[in-house]
Structure formats: C-alpha cells, structure tokens
C-alpha cells in the first residue's frame, strides 16, 4: 500500500476509486514478490485495462456516481482474488458527459490513446447507440449496462454486448403474467408519450393478455407536462390496475396528484422503479405509493432471505439495509441497475480467461469467447441471480423482482422466472463478420 490513509469520516474498508487504484498498485507489488502463487502463471504482469465510459457530468451524473462506485468495488474484488488471468485490472475512466457524440469520441480515445482492452459500463441508451458504431469500426469489445433493447434488437454490431443486465423488453414481458394473476385483470397504462413510454405500451400487453388480462386504457402524457390531474379522468372507471412508468422531475408531482385524485380508494398501482431510482421511497408526497407494486431489477432493501452472495455484494459496494450509502443514509443507490456493472466485469473476466486473452490483438477472440458463454450461475459473481445468455443477440435474460411498498420499504413479493421475460432472438450478431 502506498502509505497510510486517514479517511475523514469513514472506516478504512470504504471503497473509493482511489482505494481501488491503490489496491491495484498493491497487487502489482505482490506480483513482483517471489512465490506469489496466484500470479505465478501470468505471462504478463501488465494490467488488463478496462475503459470505463462513465456519465460523470451531464444528466447521467447522479446515476454515474453509483455505477462508478460499483465498478470500483468489483474491480477491487477481482484484484483481491488474483485479477484476470493473473493480471490485475485497471479501470481507466473517461467522462462522456452523457452525450452520444462525446461517447463515440471516448471510445476512440480508449482504443487509440489509452489502448484499453475493452470498453465497459455505459448506462444511457442514447450514448450506447451513439458510441456503438465507433466500437464496431475500431473492433473494440463494448460491454454496456444500459438495460435498453437496442443491443437485443440487432441494430448495433458484433462488438456490442449486454450480458450483465436484462433488457427492458424482457423486463416488461416478465411482470405481465403475475400482474394478471395477482393484482388485477383490467389494466390502464399511464406512460410518457415518447419512445421510452411506447416501449412499455407496445411490449407489455402480449404476455399480460396471454395470462388473461386486458388493457382497458392507454393514457399517454406529453413529456413536457408537469401537472397531471387533468389526465386522470381518462383512466376508465373499471380499471383494476394502473401501470405507471412516469419519469423525470414530475414523478413526485404525478404520485401526489394521483393520490389526491383517488384518495383512499382507487385502482391498485404497478410501477417501474426507474421512476424513483435513487429516490427515498419515504419522501413526502409519495405516501400514496404505500401498498403499491414495483418492478425492481434487484431489490433495493435487504430482504430477509437474502443470500450470502447478495450480502457480500451489498457490503462491497457500500449500501446499507435500506439500499443507501453506508456513509450517507440520504444517498439512495440506483440498486435496480447498478448490479449490472458488477456482473458485467465478472463476465469480461470469464470471457477473457476462456479466450486466453493476452492483449488487444486478441479482441476478436474475446468476442467469440463471450459468444460461447451461455449461462451465468447465481453466486458472488452474479448476486442478482442466474442469467441465461443469448449469443445471437448478445443479451442476457435474468429473473426480475416484484416488490410491494409496505412499512416504508420495498418488500419482494414475487420473483419472476427467466422464461417469463424471454423472447425468441430477433437478430444474429454471430453471423456478422469480425
């Protein structure tokens, strides 16, 4: 270690980007020491360089902060356990400003200037879509953590993967049957009237209707709207469930006004936690959500039956039982998505080890090795749960969580099966030239 650190507020176990870097320094030091078994077979002691395309500024910054913390924690855990193929991981962070054009420039920088082995970690869909062509042209394996459907749709290229998180199409499909069987059969969808909302409008009904449900109403809300009461009369009176996917600064107002509109009666609610990711569920104005249901990618609150792997993951990334930072209870994590960074780094590790990856010349081999993966078993490397990987569409499918708000927490009431969300591949990247 590079000298003692006196942290201001925290015990030393806390992770920051800096401690991870230092951890790597330590790993490099250990490698030089004779007889260090785990590194003894490494052919090169050069670190594996992971280009982290991070939203450090721009609209994604609040989410980028947690993606960065989880990435740092995962890199630290991998390094502590001996690195990849005996080589330590080095995270090279570049800020894309949450901007697609800048994103493409960052991919180029990773390839030409930093000479990273892969690029990883992008969250916002428009940045993924803007950066993917550069990754394809530069033949740079690009592992995104965005949950968007763009990878699985086949519209990107062979170098783009999303193996660590389920895409939105599968998420939306997965919750349909359970809602029809347990919450109500007549549903009205309230959604922002643009592509994100349309994805929900178009992809939700199939599985829901197959399970006996009916969509009785569609209430699109213009994205510029900031007051919602006047749209509520459009919700049919026989509605049993309102499915809401509102996003943006108006969400809190939306919930408050919905509560004022229906009072103590009214339909049941099912929402996507995307609406309130990183927002305290006990905030004033959100009282109306009590008893309602949410999709979660991974539970925010520690569940009574949590596995040791989940507990270890939560401890490593530094979140408490409520899913907030252990150092800062008001800093609620983006827990429904950020696990994807952790799992994706382990998938890169697995693929590199399978490919016998040595350096940038082996990038094509790495793509093929990733495509040869089919399953990621639940465990410390995949605490969110088992994932089934579809090589043709470069997309993983995993289980989803449905939680109910009660007692000021989100309690998991159902875990969907992987099959609930799965769909037939609609493209085949493996047939594209490398």
């Amino acid at each position, binding site marked *: 270690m590079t000298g003692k650190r006196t942290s201001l507020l925290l015990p030393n176990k806390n992770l920051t980007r800096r401690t991870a870097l230092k951890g790597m320094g330590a790993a490099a030091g250990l490698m030089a020491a004779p007889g260090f078994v785990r590194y003894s077979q490494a052919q090169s002691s050069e670190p594996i360089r992971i280009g982290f395309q991070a939203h450090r500024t721009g609209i994604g910054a609040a989410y980028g902060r947690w993606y960065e913390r989880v990435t740092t924690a995962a890199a630290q855990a991998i390094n502590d356990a001996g690195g990849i193929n005996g080589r330590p991981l080095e995270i090279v962070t570049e800020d894309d400003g*949450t901007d697609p054009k800048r994103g493409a420039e960052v991919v180029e920088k990773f390839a030409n200037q930093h000479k990273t082995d892969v690029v990883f970690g992008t969250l916002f869909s428009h940045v993924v879509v803007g950066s993917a062509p550069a990754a394809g042209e530069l033949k740079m394996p690009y592992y995104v953590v965005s949950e968007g459907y763009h990878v699985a749709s086949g519209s990107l290229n062979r170098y783009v993967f999303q193996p660590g998180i389920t895409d939105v199409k599968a998420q939306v499909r997965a919750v349909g049957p359970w809602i029809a069987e347990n919450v109500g059969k007549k549903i009205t969808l309230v959604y922002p009237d643009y592509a994100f909302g349309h994805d929900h409008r178009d992809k939700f009904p199939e599985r829901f209707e197959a399970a006996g449900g009916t969509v009785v109403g569609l209430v699109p809300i213009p994205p*510029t709207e900031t007051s919602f009461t006047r749209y509520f009369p459009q919700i049919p009176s026989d509605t049993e469930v309102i499915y809401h996917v509102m996003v943006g600064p108006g969400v809190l107002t939306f919930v408050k006004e919905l509560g004022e509109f229906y009072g103590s009666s009214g339909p049941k609610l099912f929402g996507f936690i995307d609406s309130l990711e990183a927002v305290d569920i006990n905030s004033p104005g959100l009282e109306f959500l009590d008893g309602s249901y949410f999709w979660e990618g991974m539970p925010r609150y520690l569940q009574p039956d949590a596995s040791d792997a989940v507990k270890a993951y939560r401890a490593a990334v530094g979140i408490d039982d409520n899913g907030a930072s252990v150092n800062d209870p008001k800093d609620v994590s983006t827990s429904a998505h950020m696990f994807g960074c952790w799992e994706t780094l382990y998938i890169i590790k697995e693929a590199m080890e399978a490919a016998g990856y040595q350096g940038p010349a082996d990038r094509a081999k790495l793509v093929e090795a990733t495509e040869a993966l089919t399953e990621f078993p639940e465990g410390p490397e995949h605490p969110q749960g088992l994932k089934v990987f579809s090589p043709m569409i470069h997309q993983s499918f995993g289980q989803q969580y449905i939680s109910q708000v009660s007692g000021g927490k989100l309690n998991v009431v159902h875990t969907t099966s992987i099959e609930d969300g799965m769909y037939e591949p609609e493209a085949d990247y493996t047939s594209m030239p490398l």
Partner: protein
Amino acid sequence: MLAAGAGPAFAHAADRGFVMLLPTGYYLFGGAAAVALSFAILTLMPPEPVTRLLRAKLRVAQLPFDDRAITSWLSFAVIVLLWLAGLFGSRDPLSNPLPLVFWTVFWVGFTLVVGLFGNLWRWLDPWYGPSRLILRTIGRADRAPLFSLPKRFGHGLAIVLLFAFGWFELVYPAPDDPELLAWVLIAYWLLNLAGILAFGHEAWTSRVELFSVFFGMISRLAPLQRVDGNRLFLRFPGGKLDDAGPLPVSAMLFLLLALATVSFDGLMRTFFWLGLTGVNPLEYPGRSAVMLPNTLGLLAVFAGLAGVFVLAVWLGRRFAGMRNPLTEMAGLLVWSIVPIALAYHFSHYLGALIINGQYALAAISDPLANGWNLFGTAGYHVVAGATAGYESAWIIWNLQSAAIIGGHLLAVLLAHALAFRLAGDARTAALSQLPLAFLMVGYTVFGLWLLSSPTGG
C-alpha cells in the same frame, strides 16, 4: 439506428422534483412583493440616510503587508501544478483536481469570496509577478508599455473573452475534460501574458482580462474595503460604489453579459427552453446536439437583458425629464446589477458547490491519482445525499430564494442611491427608477422561477 428503442429514461426525479412539491408560487409572489415594496418605501424616504449608510466606514484592521508579487507567484505556482494535474492526472473530471478547482472552487467559490471580502484576485492574479520579472529581465520594468491599448476598444475584448468563457462553460460539450481544460487555461494564460507585456498590466487587466474585470466589478459589493494600502474598513454592501463613476458602455455590457450567462445557465435546463428548442425534456440528447440553439440562446438572453435594461433607463430618464446623457445614466445605474449577478451566481451554483466542492477536497490530496494523500482527504467519501431528498431541497430552495430576493433588495437600494446622485433631488430620482424597479421585480420572479421550474438538461 435511433429506432432501436429508447431503453431506460433516467431523467432525474429527485432534487428538482422535490422543489416542485414546495409552495414555490408563494415565494415568487412574496419576492416580487418584497422588491416592489422596498422600492416604494425608498421613494418615500429622503435619500440622505441611504447615502449616509453607504458612506459609513468602520476601520477594523491594519494589514501587515502589501506585496502582490509574492502572492502572484504563489498563485501561479499552484496554477502550474493544476495544469500538470490536468495533463497527467486522472482522466476522470471528478477525480482530477483541475476541473474541480477551476470550475467549482475558483469560478463558483472564489467569486462569492470576492463578493464578500473584496478583490483578492488583485493578489492572486497569476500574471503580475511573472510579467514583472520578464519586464525587469529585459530592462523595461520602469518604462511605459510598448503599446497603448486603443481607447476605442473599451472593454470590447473583455466582452469577447467573457462570451467565449461562458460558451465554453455552458455550450461546449466537454468543459470538464481535464486535459482539454489544461490546454485552454495554458493558452489563456499565455494570451494574457502577451497582452500584459505589450500593453501593460494596468491597461490589460482593467479592460481585457476577464477575471480581473469581473472580480473588480463584483468586489465593489464587498463590505470590506482596503484604503491606502493597508487600512481595512467595514462598509455596507455596495457602499464602495459611492465613488464609482459611470461605467463606459462596453463595461456596462460586460456586466450585463455576466448576469446573462448565469441566467442562461438556469434557463437552458428548464422544460420551457427545451420545449422551445424542440428537445424532449425527458430525453435530453446531450450537449453536442444543442450547441447551435444554445449558442443563439446565450446571445439572445444577453441581447434581451441589455435591451430591457437600457430601455428601462431610457424610460426612467423620460419620466423624470432628466437631461443627463443616457450612457451616463445607464453606466451608473448598471452598478445596481452587481448584487443581482452575485445572488444568481450563489443560487445557481449552490448545489454544484456542495457536491463538487467535496470532490475537489478529495482530488487535491491525490492530484495525479497515483495514491498520494497530501492533505489526508484522498479517501473522503463524497456525501451526495447533502443535496438529495425533501429536506435538503427545502433548505437549498430557501437559501436560494433568500439570496435572490436579498440581492434584488440590495439592487433597489443601490439604484436609489445612484439615481439620487444623478438627479440631485428625491422626486426625480424616484421617477427615473420606476421602470428599473419593474425590471428588478421581474428579474426576481424570473430568478425564482428558474430555480423552481422543472429541468431536464
């Protein structure tokens, strides 16, 4: 490609969402009423007490030294270290000290310090020491500058530099990129060094170098005043304006541009502006997609603000039947914009100051991201929750409102005193300010609206 599905839309629900739940309408109304009422009260009061208040001085200390060269060199040394960190340190703008120190500590924080304590930039100016050394070395230390800066330029070059700076901050996609920022700042330093060597430190820093011009204006508000080198006085905020002459037109425009820049910083993020430029506020496309509309927007806000201000002065001059030249009146009354500019600056950057200030604290301990811990803060965990949630939103909103309303109240007071200086009698002064008072009420409401309306950018 874009039809590939939007995926998650993570438009941020927090922070501004909580502000939207607050009764902000009352604040807008109350702020407007307070500013209007203060104007009414002032018009009924004889102006002498205000003038006396502004002239009051309380000696508080004798400063031990006055040597700008030493502090200038120290400042320059720190700046060189920051350049090196920008060029060779972390690529992450939240780990590299250069963008954090420049944008957050210096531009946001230091501006407030200057507004409170006076023109410390006089000491920290990184050209003074180096330029004196160069001039002494070539034997020109005591001689007149090589060239004289043409009078007709006025503050025109400073306006160009301030616009470029504002554009880089608000419109350019990557102002936080550490390496790029280092090169920009190195180029800026060299450019100004050349200007100072050619035209003299005094002429160049009072009319061209943007920070010197800006801090010189902002510091007029500071309640501390230094007289004859080392005597320190406590003044009423803005009291130092009692001997301020009318600003020339170009300097007036510079000050208005400074206010326009921070106003546009707020405006460009609102649903209103995004809607106006055809951007879905829930699906902000990133800065690179809105460079043209935002460049035009910055220019338009500047032109609009300058136009409305001059119009208000012109109308007031007509109402009061005054004979003073319009340029003299506008040039003097524009000083009353300083507290508004400072209040906007505080309110708009408060959140950034709280969060990025913490990142800066961590980054300066490990400037090259190689494991140093120079000040023991390298492992500092950034408390992002400081601005999150309902309570924080309530506290921050109230601080912002207090600053905006307080800044405008002070502006009305200063305008009153300045108008009295121009008019010579209370009735004329009051009449001449009527349109300006309307403008200030309007700008109070605008400022509070910017801070409470939904944002997506």
